[in-house]
């Protein structure tokens, strides 16, 4: 196989693999939301004051998924 063809093929493989990272970040986000809900149902009176913490946790988990998405975009369009 030509080197350029292999590189072009690898680009798409890499982008596809990076999409797995986005999926795993989704698992993390779901995990945070599930645990928050489990805790909030046990003590609903304390849940309202913790929504800010929930969103901060969601944002941090989501950021890594976005990084994976960015890697995919870079591979597809910049490399």
């Amino acid at each position, binding site marked *: 196989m030509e080197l350029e063809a292999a590189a072009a093929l690898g680009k798409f493989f890499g982008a596809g693999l990076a999409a797995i990272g986005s999926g795993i970040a989704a698992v993390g986000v779901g995990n945070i939301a599930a645990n928050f809900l489990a805790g909030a149902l046990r003590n609903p009176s304390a849940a309202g004051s913790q929504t*800010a913490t929930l969103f901060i946790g969601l*944002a941090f988990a989501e*950021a890594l998924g*976005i*990084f994976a998405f960015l890697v995919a*975009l870079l591979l597809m369009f910049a490399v």
Partner: protein
Amino acid sequence: MAGEAHSEGGLAFHPLDQFQIKPLFGTGPVEWYTVTNLTLWMAIAVMVVIAVFVYGSRSRALVPSRMQSLGEVGYNFVYNMIDEVTGHDGVKYFPWIMTLFIFVLLSNVLGLIPGSFAPTSHIMVTAVLGFGVFFAITLLGLVKHGLGFLGMFWMKDAPLALRPVIAIIEIVSYFVRPVSHSIRLSGNIMAGHAVIKVFAAFAPLIFISGFGLLVTPLSILAITAIYALEVLVAVIQAYVFTILTCVYLKDALHPSGH
């Protein structure tokens, strides 16, 4: 990103074409002073903010009108967020954080109008906001606490042997903050708009083949659902951007208060 490197796909148009920055007048090169669709929509966002707040606070009635209650809700929302997350001494920085919040929110929401342009989908716009927050907060911490600000990286609770390792991790995570802060916002907005465009590219399939009888209604449904999700994401990402600014501000005001 979506420049000349169009791959040969089957889509009717490229999902990233919508993020191209074009000059509004003529077709010349884009200089720093060129009026483009990006600057136009940023200006529109600022104008809408000014219109809402100036018009809303014009009468200052005891029983607020619609515009006034809109402004009051936004004001109270950000004020309470700073009070809760940063603490009461962070309220001094309210104008700055309110400006960030309302600009990001309006850019996100106005970008959802079909045919418009979302300024926050560009990494350069959010990087200016994110790095601006980073530099402002680092300077603020250094001015307020001097070298004591560096105590943020030196955990006094941890065992002595672990402290240098933790310090390295803390320093790295401190310097990654502006990157993740800005990429989170632009990545979310860009990904959402690109997904809508991908489904939109499948929609005209009904004109081409009989297979479209199945695909076209599904993709139109998907566009509707994802658009609703994007309205949610636009608001949540503005909220997240602001609340992270508040968290970073708290670190600068109370560096050892972990």
